[in-house]
């Protein structure tokens, strides 16, 4: 019976609760709603869905599933029971296997099957299982990390097939107890027998050069490995006594070359190395890392310090961007030079600045202005007006939901080298805010990392409030156990995630903080309360000192710090901000329209101490000499050495149209053009000489409205579908109970594919109904060769040719010889 049909029947027979559990674990099955059980079974067997389901399995579950896959054969109906699995999973017990099998069955990754033919009747009481059809494609060619069998390698590796007979003959002549063979397939079988048991292999390896065991250990968890010149000529007969381990193994066929750089450890060798078991490291409990501890006080200190610092720096960064927007590169992103400028203005390292910049951008505190190709701060940004704990939550939420990986900035670019010359060059790094730091799976990974951190913290918490110090290694190790299929995606991101979490106070002193566990437990309100209690309040006074500095003893209210930054330069880095006055900074404030009195009044109002005399003197002295040179705009000027003539002009009623201003005893300026001014003067009976000069280019800056940023709302990635959907789905499924499986189109596609795949494996012919380019349906009998990318390659025995057909042209497929009902 077709696997999908079998699965469909089984699903139909399940209780509602069992189905609910399935939908909760694999929400993609009912989105959109499945019309009937056949469709459900088809979806559950689809490759992508299975892939997703496997990502959620932990290591022992994966091991059982892979073993089950290795031990079964759907085509022959060879199923396996828990007892059968127990034999090949070292260290397992029935009581450990049964719940795992039950879970896998509940997830619809395996289903019940009849016992294999010829099995003893005693086993009739046992449950036998088969995996879903697409599992083979999803698991890949190395299930449980074991290689392919010799026969398969002979079939798929022509180079090996050519050599294998000769190789076996050589081994035979060297007296190694192997039967000679005349065909490649026989030779493969001979090798398979020769290496079939751990004892045989041990006997072979007893004469191996040293380091061979160490080398083979490296193939312990994965059958393929990289080896330089893998296709070298290695031969037993011409072997010197100081032969290297790789040559030695190649000469005996214990490693099979795949291409110039890779070798594979064949199935039987790998199995023998594992002592005859498919799995030799089965355990139900996760590895417990050795961890140091850190006290609650230290963690809180680190978290609060980091949060205060991050918020302060984010504010400063926004101020810097307001002063001068960030230019982007043509290829996108912010260049190193621009980043360095920003880093300098906020007195921070380049790498830290990059992370902070990314954090601001992903939180919507910065926007790319399309017209000017610069990053700017959106006007009227709500974030700036929020209390600090809400600012923090805004950042945390945005970070959790973001598909960007800030810590990747500055790391070398990997991946295929770009075709254009200027990027992708050796040594190129990922730019801030560029597309290369985009990681679509970042939110999922982040979530998982937080969960793992929380898990490890809860497991290892010491009684006196101490928490374990967790590093990337501990997280990766746990991820490897909890979700082996997904853990590969972790490795490049975990380190950065921990770093960013430290920046946001979720980690502190190397351990998960109270805030971190609150966020990991999806309790942002709790985190806010903790933060509100412990984050020091903003101060709104400064201390002025005679060395021309102002010190804010704590976090200075933003509006104050902004005014101060206008008249003084910020200095240093830390909870307290220091501002230094100098003639240049005071001048800056004067340029911005302040005067000495208003500056001093501001300082007097906000200083907890008297304004020191040298500071007052500096401000007054600078102000008194401010504006010795003046710059202004005028369209034309009138100059004359005759001061009285100038005075007369100024008071002449008819010159009022020129709006004259006397800027010096001998100079007037006018807002009218030189020609117009000259005309008016001539009308007055004067004869001015007009000095033509280049007219100034007046640029009008286009103002564009940039929308403000909305507060990010973070909802954890959905792990289960809403209850309503599940109930609705159940109703739909139960209504269609009576309808036969083949009735709906959705299931039939998957069924058709399954038929094709089975035919490919068994090299059987199928009869298919195909629509040609004119829309006519034809029935053909062909032998399918392969299916991929929406096409099927078929061999047409009638015409003796191969063809490629699009799958959407195929109306239905039946194994040839089946009688249509």
């Amino acid at each position, binding site marked *: 019976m077709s696997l999908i049909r079998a699965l469909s029947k089984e699903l139909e027979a399940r209780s509602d609760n069992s189905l609910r559990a399935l939908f909760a674990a694999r929400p993609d099955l009912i989105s959109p709603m499945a019309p009937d059980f056949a469709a459900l079974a088809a979806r559950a067997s689809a490759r992508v869905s299975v892939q997703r389901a496997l990502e959620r399995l932990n290591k022992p579950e994966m091991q059982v599933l892979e073993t089950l896959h290795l031990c079964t054969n759907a085509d022959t109906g060879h199923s396996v029971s828990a007892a059968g699995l127990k034999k090949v999973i070292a260290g397992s017990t029935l009581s450990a296997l049964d719940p795992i099998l039950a879970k896998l069955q509940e997830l619809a990754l395996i289903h019940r099957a009849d016992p294999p033919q010829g099995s003893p009747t005693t086993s009739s009481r046992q449950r036998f299982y088969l995996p879903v059809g697409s599992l083979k494609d999803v698991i890949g060619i190395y299930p449980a990390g074991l290689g392919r069998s010799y026969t398969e390698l002979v079939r798929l590796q022509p180079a090996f097939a050519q050599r294998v007979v000769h190789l076996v003959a050589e081994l035979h002549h060297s007296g190694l107890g192997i039967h000679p063979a005349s065909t490649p397939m026989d030779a493969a079988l001979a090798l398979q027998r020769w290496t079939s048991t751990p004892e045989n292999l041990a006997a072979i390896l007893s004469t191996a050069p040293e380091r061979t065991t160490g080398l083979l250990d490296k193939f312990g968890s994965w059958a393929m490995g990289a080896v330089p010149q893998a296709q070298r000529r290695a031969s037993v007969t011409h072997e010197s006594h100081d032969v290297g381990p790789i040559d030695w193994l190649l000469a005996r066929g214990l490693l099979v070359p795949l291409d110039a750089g890779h070798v594979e450890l064949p199935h039987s060798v790998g199995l023998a190395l594992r002592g005859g078991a498919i799995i030799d490291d089965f355990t139900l409990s996760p590895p417990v890392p050795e961890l140091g501890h850190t006290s609650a006080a230290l963690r809180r200190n680190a978290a609060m310090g980091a949060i205060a*610092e991050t918020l302060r720096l984010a504010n400063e960064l926004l101020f810097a961007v307001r002063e001068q927007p960030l230019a982007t590169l043509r290829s996108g992103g912010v260049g190193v030079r621009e980043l360095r400028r920003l880093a300098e203005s906020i007195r921070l390292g380049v790498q830290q600045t990059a992370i902070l910049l990314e954090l601001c951008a992903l939180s919507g505190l910065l926007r790319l202005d399309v017209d000017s190709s610069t990053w700017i701060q959106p006007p009227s940004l709500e974030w700036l007006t929020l209390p600090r704990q809400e600012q923090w939550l805004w950042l945390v939420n945005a970070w959790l939901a973001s598909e960007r990986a800030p810590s990747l900035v500055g790391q070398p670019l990997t991946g295929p080298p770009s075709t254009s010359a200027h990027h992708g060059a050796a040594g190129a790094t990922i730019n801030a805010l560029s597309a290369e730091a985009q990681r679509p799976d970042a939110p999922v990974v982040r979530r998982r990392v937080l969960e793992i951190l929380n898990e490890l913290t809860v497991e290892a918490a010491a009684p006196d409030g101490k928490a374990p110090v967790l590093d990337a290694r501990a997280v990766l190790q746990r991820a490897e156990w909890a979700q082996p299929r997904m853990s590969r995606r972790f490795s490049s991101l975990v380190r950065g995630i921990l770093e960013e979490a430290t920046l946001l106070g979720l980690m502190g002193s190397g351990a998960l903080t109270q805030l971190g566990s609150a966020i990991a437990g999806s309790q942002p309100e709790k985190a806010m309360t903790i933060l509100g209690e*412990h984050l020091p309040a903003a101060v709104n006074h400064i*201390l002025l000192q*005679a060395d021309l500095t102002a010190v804010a003893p704590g976090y200075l209210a933003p509006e104050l710090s902004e005014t101060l930054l206008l008249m003084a330069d910020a200095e240093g880095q830390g909870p307290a901000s220091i501002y230094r006055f*100098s003639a240049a900074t005071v001048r800056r404030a004067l340029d911005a329209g302040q005067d000495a009195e208003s500056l001093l009044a501001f300082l007097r109002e906000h200083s907890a101490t008297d304004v020191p*005399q*040298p500071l007052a003197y500096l401000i007054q002295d600078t102000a008194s000499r401010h504006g010795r040179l003046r710059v202004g705009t005028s369209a034309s000027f009138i100059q004359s050495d005759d001061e009285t003539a100038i005075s007369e002009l100024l008071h002449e009623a008819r010159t009022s149209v020129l709006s004259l201003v006397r800027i010096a005893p001998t100079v007037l300026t006018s807002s009218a053009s030189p020609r117009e001014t000259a005309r008016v003067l001539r009308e007055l009976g004067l004869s001015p000489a007009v000095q033509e000069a280049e007219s100034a280019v007046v640029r009008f800056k286009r103002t564009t409205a940039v929308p403000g940023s909305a507060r990010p709302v973070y909802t954890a990635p959905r792990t289960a579908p809403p209850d309503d959907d599940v109930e609705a789905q159940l109703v739909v499924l139960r209504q269609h109970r009576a309808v036969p499986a083949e009735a709906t189109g959705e299931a039939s596609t998957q069924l058709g594919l399954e038929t094709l795949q089975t035919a490919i494996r068994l090299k059987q012919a199928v009869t298919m109904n195909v629509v040609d380019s004119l829309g006519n349906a034809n029935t053909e009998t062909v032998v399918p060769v392969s299916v991929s990318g929406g096409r099927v390659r078929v061999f047409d025995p009638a015409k003796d040719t191969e063809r490629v057909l699009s799958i959407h042209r195929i109306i239905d497929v039946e194994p040839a010889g089946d009688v249509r009902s």
Partner: protein
Amino acid sequence: MNDGPLIVQSDKTILLEVDHELATEARHAIAAFAELERAPEHMHSYRLTPLGLWNARAAGLDAEQVLDTLLKYSRFPVPHALLIDVEETMSRYGRLRLEKDPQHGLVMRTDDYPVLEEVIRAKKIAPLLGPRIDGETVVVHSSQRGQLKQLLLKLGWPAEDLAGYVDGQPHLIMLDESGWQLRPYQKLATENFWAGGSGVVVLPCGAGKTLVGAAAMATSSTTTLILVTNTVSARQWKDELLKRTSLTEDEVGEYSGAVKEVRPVTIATYQVLTTKRGGLYPHLELVDGHDWGLIIYDEVHLLPAPIFRMTADLQARRRLGLTATLVREDGREGEVFSLIGPKRYDAPWKDIEAQGYIAPADCVEVRVDLPRDERVAYAMADDADKYRLCATSETKTKLVEDLVAVHKGEQLLVIGQYIDQLDEIAERLDAPLIKGETSVKARQKLFDAFRKGEIHTLVVSKVANFSIDLPEASVAIQVSGSFGSRQEEAQRLGRLLRPKQDGRAARFYSLVARDTLDQDFAAKRQRFLAEQGYAYRIMDAKDVGRDVGQEQ
């Protein structure tokens, strides 16, 4: 959050709020490991440096105590990275130890094998070492002890020197405390030094560093070599020692350009030791040819480079460094640390001033406007001449006269850089001038007369910067300085800080030409003085008479 007086910044500075009730307590706690950097009126700032942290380790403090102190007194969370950094830095000290081995002599030992491997592979260190005894021990050539310590410090693995000191030739020296007493902080400084073996005592000018030296000599009671900056200073040391200790004229020798006496206590100038003849230092023998039990370095911050090299060979003798400031314009504080020893005592100027041991100072910057012709000359001058032009403005001479008139009857110094200007001022004021060419004898005579009050006004060039003792100067007028050097400023101010009999504040005027380089340099000096906590005012030249008149 607790409400402590400290704010620990992530840039490794520590701010101390002076007006906080726990400020004193916190200051004492952090002084052991952080260097006071600035001490303006409200917020003092300290800096955490590797050197400071190693100093603390040398003084027996461990990282945990340092972290506890920071966490205890900090008002806000302490940046975690800084805590880790402190811990790591401090753990580097003492991984290597210099020890005395009965069999092999001086050896370097470690419990941390990789560290030893790392340092013995350093190119510069390898030649200083002898054969390797075992994995953790290597012989050190004893003559290279100082050199090795210095290089290890540069590599970031400062060695703990446990090899001890030679006793030196005993010679009884006692303090003669009749009519005066060692001040508490002087006593403490001496004790700290002695307990630590070798090291530097930092005290402000006028706080009685000479007496710390004398007390150390009395504790040691061995023959002593004192290295000073110049001959005048040597004479003053001699006078002071004769007055304050049991030493007699015959026991104290001077070793300078003029006289070469070697006595149980010998005072030598840096200059004579560094005189080079035919590629050799003929007078170096004074140092290593005798069995000194104690070597005192006066004004460590001026220690010239050859003396550094020489000192490197003296590591087996007790060394005391005296200075007003560990700030070296050449940034070689690390060498002082490794060659003479860690800082053993430090007191901020303001503290000692508050206890009444040194006079409070009132610094006034007077801005003069250059007359039009001088402004034009200044604007058109080459860069090299600009400073001289503005610093020697004629208006300053006039102003000096006015100020002298205002302070009539007070002991007054006029200090300057340019001899022409000083000549003119001396002539206008009818006051004697001390400059480079003035003989030592004439100088001494003038100083004596000034001290006795026979002369009220003295014009001095920069030769008077160091170690002269003018007890009753209460007003100084600085007409020009050498480009705003912080050290020079400290020294000049130091001239005024010896306590006045009537408890009056000392007055320190700097005359500055507005809108010129002079003003830029003055800004530097102003910052330095304000950071040291001195009251600092700026006024215009035209207000001079009025302002001072009101006060009096």
